[in-house]
């Protein structure tokens, strides 16, 4: 086979899913080529058909999915026509798969060694017991796990997420396939781990000349890791070509929007509505105008708010959890360790850290959903750690949370109207009429139509649900909003919308935000001050500009370097 022939050629691929309402197309005429040794990234939001395309290539569609048209030519053979046995010979041996979720992709009841050896035997890489074991050790070594011998005897639960993903990469690459499909291999991992894993994957595949199809929702990540991009939207390819070119000169309106909305590619804090002149309800829905970009207007007058008195003040706040060991004794675990910070009125403080850093616990302490072990938290100069029932209720009125999961934060059995009215009912604000008026008012503030009032959460999209959650938080006219990973679960475009909305609400209503996130890229566009947390302690605290331009600690530098696509220069 000459190097000029494509290794994989997808031609007009069509995939449909069987539902109660008949067949629904998920992939509608997708064509692209993968050449030997190249890395191609398929980028798209959830529901764009990117994962379905990948699964169709190796014929691993879920039960209700079917290829309804087109060809998948792998070295000239049409994979979609192969019999099951023939396909099994291709899978693993010729085309490897690195699955999405490292936490659920390994069988918890089998040792790592068994699972690696299983792959080796299934692909006929070795037959005798000793050879299989030897090969398994090699696979884990190649995947970058030290003490491979010992590791083989361990169970998946003894591994961290990053280690599990290494095992999966090892398994995927164990038979030296010509093509590897990596389906969001790191979306469940912390950024610093993500960088290491992807660096390793890139190193391994480059060494062997393996072609990679890399599936991701993150445009920055895709551009950083692949030479060529395929951008998908609603089952179709909207734009494809060299990564850098697409990023610097996106031509399709959807790609333009995607590029301008990617927080990892934006550089400055979002300006409030006042600066841009765009009223809050003007969220663009029709045209191709990318009004939802994370606006890159010059420095905001963040300094002004520094002098304002602190609305939230943490003083040496410590939270110790008791971890039950099964017996009468328990082990103390310090989740938040002597954390101190201040948030001036009308500004945004971002608490940044990886999973397990204690950032969410800090938010729960502020919301009084957990009790403090030691230290004090002052809100508006008042110690909130020892409040009576009435005072606590008054505090709750001043401070509202918005949580991460737009699917979990609304009660599925309450309609939107009741959900937003709930805080008003609890605090007995006004009469039925004024409550109704207030609900309509906040709905308008978050740019949702009145027609959603009678709807249920499962009828709304993720972004809309998050707007409802914000509307509920705003209903009582709070001063402080605690945003716990409030945009992390959203697609980029929707994330940009919600971030813009938050910025506009802040300038309009003078809100103070405590913004909890693992994503430094988002911090840059929303926050004024940053506290970087690691293992319960604050390791660095400064304004956003200082942290990004002049990080003091190694950990912050590592976090910054791990933001995907950070070094890619953008075009106009």
């Amino acid at each position: 086979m000459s190097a000029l022939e494509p290794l994989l050629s997808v031609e007009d691929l069509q995939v449909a899913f069987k539902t109660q309402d008949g067949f629904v197309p998920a992939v509608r005429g997708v064509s692209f080529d993968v050449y030997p040794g190249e890395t191609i990234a398929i980028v798209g939001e959830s529901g764009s058909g990117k994962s379905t395309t990948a699964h169709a290539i190796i014929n691993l569609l879920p039960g209700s999915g079917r290829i309804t048209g087109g060809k998948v030519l792998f070295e000239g053979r049409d994979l979609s026509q192969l019999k099951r046995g023939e396909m099994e010979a291709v899978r693993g041996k010729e085309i490897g798969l690195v699955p999405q979720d490292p936490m659920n992709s390994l069988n918890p009841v089998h040792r790592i060694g068994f699972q690696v050896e299983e792959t080796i035997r299934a692909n006929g890489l070795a037959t005798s017991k000793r050879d299989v074991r030897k090969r398994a050790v090699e696979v884990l070594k190649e995947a970058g796990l030290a003490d491979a011998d010992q590791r083989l005897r361990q169970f998946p639960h003894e591994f961290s997420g990053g280690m599990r993903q290494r095992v999966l990469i090892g398994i995927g690459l164990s038979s030296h396939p010509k093509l590897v499909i990596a389906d969001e291999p790191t979306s469940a991992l912390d950024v610093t781990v993500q960088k290491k894993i992807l660096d390793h994957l890139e190193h391994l595949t480059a060494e062997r000349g393996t072609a990679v199809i890399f599936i991701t929702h993150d445009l920055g990540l895709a551009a950083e890791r692949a030479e060529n991009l395929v951008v998908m939207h609603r089952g179709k390819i909207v734009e494809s070509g060299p990564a850098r070119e697409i990023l610097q000169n996106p031509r399709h309106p959807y790609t333009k929007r995607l590029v301008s909305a990617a927080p990892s590619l934006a550089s400055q804090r979002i300006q409030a509505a006042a600066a841009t002149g765009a009223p809050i309800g003007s969220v663009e829905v029709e045209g191709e105008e990318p009004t939802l970009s994370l606006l890159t207007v010059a420095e905001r007058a963040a300094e002004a708010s520094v002098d304002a008195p602190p609305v939230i003040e943490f003083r040496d706040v410590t939270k110790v959890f008791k971890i039950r060991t099964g017996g009468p004794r328990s082990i103390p675990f310090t989740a938040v360790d002597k954390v101190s910070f201040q948030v001036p009125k009308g500004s945004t403080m971002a608490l940044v850290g990886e999973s397990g850093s204690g950032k969410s616990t800090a938010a729960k302490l502020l919301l009084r959903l957990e009790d403090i072990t030691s230290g004090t938290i002052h809100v508006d100069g008042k110690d909130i750690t020892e409040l009576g029932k009435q005072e606590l209720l008054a505090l709750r009125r001043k401070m509202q949370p918005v949580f991460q999961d737009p699917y979990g934060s609304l009660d599925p059995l309450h309609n939107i109207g009741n959900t937003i009215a709930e805080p008003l009912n609890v605090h007995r604000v006004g009469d039925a009429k004024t409550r109704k008026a207030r609900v309509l008012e906040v709905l308008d503030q978050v740019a949702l139509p009145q027609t959603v009032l009678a709807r249920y959460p499962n009828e709304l999209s993720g972004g809309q649900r998050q707007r409802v959650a914000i509307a509920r938080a705003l209903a009582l006219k709070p001063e402080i909003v605690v945003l716990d990973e409030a945009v992390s679960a959203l697609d980029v475009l929707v994330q940009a919308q919600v971030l813009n909305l938050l910025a506009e609400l802040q300038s309009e209503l003078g809100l103070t935000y405590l913004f909890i996130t693992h994503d430094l890229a988002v911090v840059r566009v929303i926050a004024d001050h940053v506290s970087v947390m690691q293992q319960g302690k604050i390791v660095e605290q400064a304004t956003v500009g200082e942290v990004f331009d002049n990080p003091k600690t190694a950990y912050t530098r590592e976090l910054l370097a791990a933001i995907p696509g950070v070094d890619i220069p953008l075009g106009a």
Partner: protein
Amino acid sequence: MSSKNPVRTAPHYVAEVDEGGLGAVDAVRVSDRKSNLWLDAWRDLRGRWMFWVSAVIILFIVFVALFPGALTQVPPNDNCILSVKTQDQADALGVPIGTRISDHGPLPGHPLGFTKQGCDVFSRIVHGTGTSLSVGIIVTVLVAVMGIVIGAFAGYFGGWLDSFLMRLGDIFFAIPYILAAVVIMSLFLHDRNIWIISLAIGFFSWPSTARILRSEVLRVRNLDYVMASESIGLSKFRTMFMHVLPNSIAPVIIISTVGLAGAITAEATLSFLGVGLPNNIYMSWGNDISAAQTSLRTAPQTLIYPSIALSVTVLAFIMLGETVRDALDPKARATR
């Protein structure tokens, strides 16, 4: 950028802007039908033949239980005769004087024949429906209420209350409820009634409902909307009633429909064992099946017909439970 050398320069392809535009991001699907868990479940149920079959059977059973007189005018327990003695009786039944009626086969006006005591089998079955159904419903309600209250408190408040209630449940769970019911019924020799037998059955079968509800509550309790409600200022009790319970109740409904069938069987079992309802006051399928044992060879109809009534009723409720379970489980819905 990737460290690899590009093998080729890919052409820069741009699709035509398609008709849909980018509006989808913001659009609210207002044109769609309203939906939530219960509405979806109902829409799903409507399309299942098994649901309609079981629903029709159950409605019929309820009708029979409420208006037994609509099906038969023959009293189930009075005017039972062992043999024809008078001319009037002979004329009514169309048999000569002196015929043994006890365990006799069908005669005009008595389609299913007679019991050993010479009572009409059909009438006894019709009048027994009310007993079976009442016991079934009372037990189900009792078990559901006890299970929900105990399971909800254990799951939502946790800690020592959880440990205490669940260990209590384990104790009750360890005692076979039929055995316990036999013991309880033996204590009430003279004043047995529907309430006593329902209590006897229900009092020992709540732990499984409580366990199921507890595990659901444990799941729902950790969802963000519960935390959101608490941070709004909702009290723990109101959060439990407004948000946690309504979202945890579905499995209890499923287990209750199947449990209703179990309760009817349990009543029949107790009556069969002779520790159920007194057979001179209450018609009960279990009683009749028990009484029919002795004449199984000579008069099988006295055993078979009450058994069929019992089986059909139990089957109908189990079928209903099955369909409701599938309808409430989105995963089962999707694969249909």
